[in-house]
């Protein structure tokens, strides 16, 4: 009996040690998502909620890439929708229409993403601040027009459907796609965590605060701006591929300004510098609508009224909580901790008398 207790204690201690690791929380999060997926199979979680969670995960990947741009490099870009759309069309065309193996498609998409990222990065070297948003908006419009007009690649305004998703020559079921999305989501989170804690992340942060100061400390603007855009584009293209695997359909009107604005809103609302915040923000902007608000009769009758909540959230957060909702939660956490300490102190005073 005593040996067992010793083992248990050792196990608990090792868990405690593990829980200090920065990956721990996110891996637990991934396991929870897997459990939710299994509960969905057994019917405990409704399919609507599961679909919402999967979509939120895909959008979170985009948001993570965008947060590297906005929260770390300080570059406000509105071209996100175009990049994601490009990802969907890459897999839809090369794997769907032409029937290439998935690996080939992935390589082509990554090369495409890098080329595009480098182009936008070079643009960002010349144009800064407010203007960059407008110019990337123009770039996104160009891509949308290309999606509409280049029928051989995108099937034009009718939209491109993609049904034969295959990994290593095997057709893949919806369940496997969901598992793949969860896996890639967690991998992307860990990758982002590594990037932002590495010298690259610090360099991006320095660049955000002051270009001139960063340059004088030996940080190459050229290198890191290009890197930031290439990373954001790669995230967006990967999310696009997953979107196509999950939704099986892509149409140019999806990839318009609203989509970019919503991703921006998600990053701002959650908190652009915290991974938990970004996931929270994406859920607030996309998931809240799909999972909860659509069950309320008012929003069923007026589907567009959901935008009001998103817009209000953005404005309130920017004006009162510039760090994002995650700061609000932190503030609540600290206030609870301080309350608890006060109560504990009061109890001690009552129990053992005043300390001299």
């Amino acid at each position, binding site marked *: 009996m005593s040996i067992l207790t010793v083992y248990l204690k050792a196990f608990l201690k090792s868990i405690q040690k593990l829980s200090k690791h920065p990956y721990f929380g996110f891996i637990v999060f991934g396991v929870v998502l897997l459990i939710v997926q299994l509960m969905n199979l057994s019917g405990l979680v409704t399919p609507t909620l599961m679909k919402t969670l999967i979509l939120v995960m895909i959008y979170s990947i985009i948001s993570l890439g965008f947060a590297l741009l906005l929260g770390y490099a300080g570059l406000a870009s509105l071209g996100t929708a175009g990049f994601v759309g490009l990802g969907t069309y890459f897999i839809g065309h090369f794997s769907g229409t032409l029937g290439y193996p998935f690996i080939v498609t992935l390589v082509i998409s990554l090369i495409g993403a890098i080329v595009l990222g480098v182009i936008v990065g070079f643009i960002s070297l010349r144009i800064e601040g407010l203007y960059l948003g407008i110019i990337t908006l123009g770039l996104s419009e160009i891509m949308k027009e290309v999606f509409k007009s280049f029928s051989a690649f995108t099937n034009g305004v009718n939209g491109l459907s993609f049904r034969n998703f295959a990994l290593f020559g095997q057709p893949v079921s919806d369940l496997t796609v969901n598992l793949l999305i969860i896996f890639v989501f967690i991998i992307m989170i860990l990758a982002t965590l590594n990037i932002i804690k590495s010298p690259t992340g610090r360099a991006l942060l320095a660049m955000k605060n002051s270009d001139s100061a960063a340059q004088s400390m030996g940080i190459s603007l050229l290198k890191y701006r290009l890197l930031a855009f290439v990373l954001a584009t790669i995230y967006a293209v990967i999310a696009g591929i997953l979107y196509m695997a999950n939704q099986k359909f892509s149409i140019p009107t999806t990839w318009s300004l609203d989509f970019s604005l919503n991703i921006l809103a998600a990053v701002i609302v959650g908190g652009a510098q915290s991974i938990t915040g970004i996931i929270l923000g994406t859920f607030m902007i996309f998931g809240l609508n799909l999972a909860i608000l659509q069950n309320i009769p008012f929003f069923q009758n007026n589907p567009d009224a959901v935008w009001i909540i998103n817009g209000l959230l*953005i404005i309130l957060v920017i004006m009162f909580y510039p760090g994002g909702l995650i700061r609000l939660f932190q503030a609540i956490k600290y206030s609870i901790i301080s309350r608890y300490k006060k109560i504990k102190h009061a109890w001690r005073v009552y129990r053992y008398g005043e300390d001299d």
Partner: protein
Amino acid sequence: MLNNIIYLVLGIFVSYFLIDFIFFRKHSKRPILRTRLINILIMLAILISFYLVVKEMSVYLFLQIFLLNIVDLCVLALATTGIVLIFKTSVTTNFAQGTMATFGAFAAAKQLLRLSATTEYSMTTKLIMVMGVAALTSFLIGLFIDLAIIRRGRNVNAVGKQMITMGLVLILFGFMPLVFGTTPLTIEAFSYDVKIFNIGEMMLILPTHNYYVLLITIGLLGLLFLALRFTKWGLGVRATASNETVASMMGVNTRLITAMSWAIAGALGGVAAFLYAPVGAQITSTFMTPVQVNSFLSAVLGGFSTFGGPLVGALLINMFQSMASFINSVWANVIVYTLVLFLVLAKPLGLFGKKTAKKV
């Protein structure tokens, strides 16, 4: 002809790098000379490409397309002026300009329905009354936005303010179906006749609606520019634009100036949406989005530092569009946006932008 233009662009690039490398390499004033060279080359490129395309299209066709597209130009000019006015006083690019304008157009269309049902005025009278409604609605929305949000967000940085306007877009999008219902509305044109007139031997057709639109736009913009030049408000706007803190220290009521700028920009947008509605067929919540995108691009192309520059930008974009749709109608927008992108890359502050010293 497309080949000629591609050769022209390539030639301009090559000559820029050659001249820069051979003549300016060891010059002490290299950056200044470079900007001058870029200015000259851009002027040359625009003039030569205009000449090439107009020669291909014939002058008659060019003028005719210009007259038929004049509504687009006027709407673009009005929307762009609104955006620049807001940029001058609040240092933010207003993404909600198009949505504010759409609100005005919706209100106008509703009012037009009511007037048609209850009164017996002639169509032109009704339309003029309704234009007032559109301007007033957007005026009030602009005023409200400044009073409720922008004024309280003074300590928000420029990009943050830009995001606030994006949030406003979402809010207004959400409110539109709640307030005006989901049935698409329409506004009739002033007139469906055409005017035929001769210049030399050319017989040109000008739709009467376009004629009225042109008159209204010139009147409004003329008034605005006179006000900016000669009234106390205009002086205040210019003072606030150059430095808000100093202006407020010198006794300029910057709060009032900013609020009025938002309101007037809203009104301009409302009129623009009202004029654009008969062309864009139905009023939906997104029908001003192309105008919004184009007006941003023309403001960036012309440069935010002057009021006249963006108007030239609007004119250029409009002409590019009619020419590009002549060259290849499917890819017209792609051609125009790419051209603008290249122009802005060559001159990041816009064609008429002035460089301001930045404090590090």
